[in-house]
């Protein structure tokens, strides 16, 4: 057969063309989901539960209904279909029926002529509650005396992974530790927002920010009791996601209001509402025991992880599995015992956030490796290198790591980084923790250098049949007297800022040699692309686009044979390389046919679905091949601590990540830098404070995320060790840097202070020697 090669091309894969949406975004003209409007549009508002756990005795909407400008008020009784949603189990009511399970749970909806009228009317909905005892902790949830919050009990899922037998070892050194991780918020800058427009056929169009519009539509179909064909979900501009938009939030509410009122309805959450309106990263308790030989060889690991899933399941089912599978980190260990559980409580629901369970696990395993190195008197990087995963090694699930494992390279790159400046006692205030706060003149400042490495799986695990769909068209366009061929690419993959809409264009350019490529709007008119999560879209949707392009290439060659007969045939004979470039099909250097002739008046299109190789569910003892591919990153952090005030300052942060193949190197760096910043936030400042189920810091005044002043100069090193099974060898790039950044920063603080640091985010008082013992929850 003829081999069509994929050459490097301007704006193709491996280059960094500017984003197609960049110009609109810098001019303020890009339409985010909060920037939409329609004639006759109403504004929606949500009535939420003030109680963590209560029976809903009565909802009286009469006062709200009578208020000025109010058009619709809805309660659970108005949900036409199934009053439940959820990505794995539909256990969360769209509007609470007889019971509320967390503070902020939606109970009723209002649509009114202005946002203010909707807000005021919402306050007039009278709900009578009888408070019930809230379940606040994992222990309480699992106590047999606690009444279950859901029919199947309070345990959402437990995973046990067993390999070998830890008890067969008499280790020279044993290190135990119990680590706690706070609840982190994705804090995308765009809050939840959208616009629902009733259709004439009784259906509805929803324009919304989302990570997965087909999952949205499927859930909406059940809730609205409409066939999916009557629901059109269109991706509106997404102001960041990071996991917060995998679940539906206001989607069903908007559609219900639009269908009830017969008018378009818009909703925009405030920042405060956003904090209660979407799921968070699971807070975790991780208990570890590592046993090693005196030379540093890891003999066994025992690990127990407890996650608080909050009131509803969301993606807890999968997060707990990730935490278990990656609990040991990228190290070889044949004797492991891992238990990971996630439970229902009356706390805010938790679900997906970048790094998805592996973030919590890495905080534990990297703390253990640091402390083990100390106990052994070894260099922490050397200890990691001694135990690092290599090709052919088995993971705790028994799954082999195929191909070159980048972990050693990452550690070596980090170890060989130069440029830790010595602490300068004469440094200016700006270069000290606390900055111009003038809290120190350098006396108590200590500098530490720390390392962290982490990994997770890219793609959907555990035998899930995951796929993506793409349509690619070649079309003739008339440009004056000239005719040239342009391409369109359509997918349902959510562009959430990561740059997927650039990636699909690059792939088409490379595959078809057409410079002029447009990515069409993202909606549910085409098959699913799956979720923009799990670092999977470049692999999956990229794979679908590649497949569609290759189908078109075959068709072009076919047509060349048919239309250009013997000449084309002889040029395209076996082994000869054919190439699409410069608007033509070439064999070697000879033009076989111009693209315009091959594409014809009608144009040409192909739709392809891409499936990855199957994975397996967990078998007995958590054994199997549940994961598709493995993605790694590591960090070195340099941090200063004022040991008198507990204030910190990052001096440097360096990240090394393997992405298989960097389709768009600048975007990959952007993922590494942005992911690193979120990890820094978790290490130093980001924790949702929950008190008896209530979020106490639901604002950017009280929940701090890193500013430009919190981040030090950063270098990024991209490794390209291809995954032989993936399109172009790509590996997911979105998440790994978030996994290793937190442990590296904490490690640097550990080095600076000599303190063990059992809680993340690290708080000032954890770093002050005089406050020893205060609020420390770990075992020494």
């Amino acid at each position, binding site marked *: 057969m003829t081999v069509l090669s994929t050459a490097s091309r301007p704006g193709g894969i491996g280059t*960094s063309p*500017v*984003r197609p*949406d*960049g*110009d609109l*975004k*810098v*001019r*303020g*003209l*890009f*339409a*985010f989901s*909060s*920037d939409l*409007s329609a004639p006759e549009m109403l504004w929606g508002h949500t009535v939420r539960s003030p109680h963590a756990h209560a029976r809903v005795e009565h909802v009286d909407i009469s006062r709200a209904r009578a208020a000025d400008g109010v058009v619709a008020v809805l309660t659970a009784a108005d949900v036409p279909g199934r009053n439940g949603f959820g990505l794995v189990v539909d256990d969360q009511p769209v509007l609470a029926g007889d019971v509320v399970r967390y503070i902020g749970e939606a109970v009723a909806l209002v649509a009114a002529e202005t*946002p*203010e009228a909707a807000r005021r009317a919402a306050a007039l909905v009278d709900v009578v509650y009888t408070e019930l005892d809230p379940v606040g902790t994992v222990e309480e949830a699992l106590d047999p005396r606690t009444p279950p919050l859901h029919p199947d009990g309070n345990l959402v899922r437990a995973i046990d992974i067993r390999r070998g037998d830890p008890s067969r070892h008499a280790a020279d050194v044993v290190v135990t530790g119990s680590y706690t991780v706070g609840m982190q918020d*994705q*804090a*995308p*800058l*765009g*809050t939840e927002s959208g616009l629902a427009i009733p259709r004439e056929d009784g259906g509805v169009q929803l324009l919304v920010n989302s990570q997965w519009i087909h999952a949205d539509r499927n859930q909406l179909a059940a809730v609205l009791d409409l066939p999916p064909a009557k629901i059109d979900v269109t991706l509106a*501009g*997404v*102001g*960041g*996601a*990071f996991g917060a938009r995998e679940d539906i939030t206001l989607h069903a509410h908007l559609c219900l209001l639009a269908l009830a009122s017969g008018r378009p309805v818009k909703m*925009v959450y*405030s*920042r405060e509402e956003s904090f209660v309106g979407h799921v968070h990263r699971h807070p975790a308790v991780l208990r570890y025991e590592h046993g090693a030989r005196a030379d540093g060889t890891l003999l066994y690991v025992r690990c127990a992880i407890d996650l608080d899933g909050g009131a509803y399941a969301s993606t807890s089912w999968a997060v707990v599995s990730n935490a278990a599978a990656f609990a040991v980190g990228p190290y070889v260990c044949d004797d492991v015992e891992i238990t990971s559980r996630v439970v229902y409580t009356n706390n805010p629901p938790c679900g997906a956030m970048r790094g998805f369970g592996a973030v919590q696990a890495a905080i534990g395993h990297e703390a253990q490796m640091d402390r083990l190195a100390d106990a052994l008197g070894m260099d922490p990087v050397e200890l990691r290198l001694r135990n690092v995963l290599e090709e052919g090694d088995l993971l705790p699930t028994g799954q082999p790591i195929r191909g070159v494992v980048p972990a050693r390279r990452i550690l070596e790159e980090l170890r060989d980084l130069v440029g830790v400046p010595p602490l300068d006692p004469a440094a200016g205030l*700006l270069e000290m923790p606390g900055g111009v706060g003038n809290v120190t003149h350098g006396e108590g400042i200590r500098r530490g250098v720390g390392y962290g490495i982490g990994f997770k799986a890219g793609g959907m695990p555990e035998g899930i049949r995951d796929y993506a769909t793409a349509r690619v068209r070649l079309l003739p366009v008339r440009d004056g007297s000239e005719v040239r061929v342009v391409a369109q690419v359509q997918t349902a993959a959510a562009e*959430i*800022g*990561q*740059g997927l809409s650039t990636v699909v264009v690059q792939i088409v350019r490379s595959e078809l040699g057409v410079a002029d490529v447009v990515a069409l709007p993202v909606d549910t008119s085409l098959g699913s692309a799956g979720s923009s999560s799990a670092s999977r879209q470049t692999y999956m949707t990229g794979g679908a686009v590649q497949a569609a392009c290759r189908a078109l290439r075959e068709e072009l060659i076919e047509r060349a044979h048919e239309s250009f007969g013997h000449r084309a045939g002889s040029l395209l004979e076996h082994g000869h390389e054919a190439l699409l470039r410069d608007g033509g099909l070439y064999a070697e250097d000879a033009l076989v046919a111009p693209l315009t002739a091959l594409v014809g008046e009608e144009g040409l299109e192909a739709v392809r679905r891409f499936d990855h190789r199957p994975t397996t569910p967990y078998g007995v003892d958590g054994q199997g091949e549940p994961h598709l591919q493995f993605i790694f990153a590591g960090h070195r952090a340099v941090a200063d601590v004022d040991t008198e005030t507990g204030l910190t300052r990052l001096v440097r942060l360096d990240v090394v990540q393997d992405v298989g193949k960097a389709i768009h190197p*600048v*975007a990959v*760096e*952007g993922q590494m*830098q*942005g*992911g*690193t*910043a*979120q990890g820094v936030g978790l290490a130093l400042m980001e924790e949702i404070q929950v008190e008896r189920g209530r979020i106490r810091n639901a*604002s*950017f*005044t009280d929940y701090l*995320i*890193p*500013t*430009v*002043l919190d*981040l030090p100069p*950063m270098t990024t090193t991209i490794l390209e060790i291809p995954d032989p099974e993936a399109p172009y060898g790509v590996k997911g790039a979105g998440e790994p840097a978030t996994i290793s950044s937190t442990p590296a920063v904490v490690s640097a603080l550990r080095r600076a202070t000599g303190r063990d640091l059992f809680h993340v985010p690290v708080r000032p008082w954890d770093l002050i020697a005089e406050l020893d013992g205060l609020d420390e929850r770990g075992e020494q």
Partner: protein
Amino acid sequence: MNLDLHVNGRDHHLPDVPVWESLLSVLRDRLALYGAKNACEQGECGSCSVMLDDEVVCSCLVMAGQATGRRVRTVEGLEQDRVCAQVRRSMVEKGGVQCGFCTPGFVVAGTGILAADPDADDETIREGLAGNLCRCTGYTKILEAMADARETLHEDAS
């Protein structure tokens, strides 16, 4: 109250605006100028940045009434501004834009910094952007874009 505003070179007369309404709400919900964003509405994120005369302000913290008699310029109104045009180009070219929600705010703030001091050094730029949150980029590429804008504006001027 009746509100007279001068926005992006045009006069607007708006009847019946509640006194407590922020400049941000008026821009977005009454004038359909969606360039200024609303990530916090508490003065913490800078996504709502606009120019009031020549000063960069968070429009969520300015009561609409306070803007009467002053020149309001949103990112849309800086379309023709030479400094802003370069900041925009550099932001796109250097990868300073991901989801883009923070972007108009950074563009306005960055324009303000370089308009006030074309030689602003890296540290001045960093501090000048400290009131703008970005959750996607980790800021590195935004800083690179700002440095690039400064250099390019210099080259163009010389």
